[in-house]
């Protein structure tokens, strides 16, 4: 799998095909003497802001604290919850309604 081409910015759906959001960031773990491993996918406005410019991350964090209805600025999906990655989406073993991504809907 090409991680950036095939995973980053991909649509995420839950087990019932409900849209959760997009893969805004990918968190990996560096271990001594072993290849880095993907540990989680990250969603959220703050993550996108960081990709545009590092300085925007702090601005986005402040905006989140002041106005956001979401419980957290970032939502991390552990790689162990990823069921499938195909050319259309990333399917996760979580119900979209239970995620932070759905706080806007409540």
């Amino acid at each position: 799998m090409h991680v950036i081409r095939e995973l980053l910015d991909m649509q995420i759906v839950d087990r019932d095909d409900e849209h959760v959001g997009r893969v805004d960031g990918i968190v990996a773990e560096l271990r001594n003497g072993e290849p880095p491993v993907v540990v989680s996918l990250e969603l959220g406005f703050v993550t996108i802001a960081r990709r545009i410019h590092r300085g925007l991350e702090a601005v986005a964090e402040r905006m989140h604290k002041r106005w956001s209805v979401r419980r957290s600025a970032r939502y991390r999906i552990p790689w162990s919850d990823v069921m499938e990655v195909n050319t259309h989406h990333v399917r996760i073993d979580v119900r979209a309604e239970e995620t932070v991504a759905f706080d806007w809907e409540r």
Partner: protein
Amino acid sequence: MTTRRFRLDDLVGRMVRDAEGRSVGRIYDMRAEERNGELAIVEYHVGSAALLERVGLSMLRLIGLHRITPCKVPWDRLDISDPDHPVLRS
């Protein structure tokens, strides 16, 4: 075992330099494989060919190229302990 977390998307576009500080190319993609239930990064794709590879084959055909091979750097040859300044190990 010491572990440290970082963002893979932070690596994208970073210039890789060799031990003498010479530019090798920028990281545009990386290939991963499933190993023991984990997704392990096995190689980094570096240089303009890697960027063209990311753009896709249809775009390459448009500019008259049918096949390009990016510079593939195995995971153990790239020191990413500082993700902002990846260094090619000799």
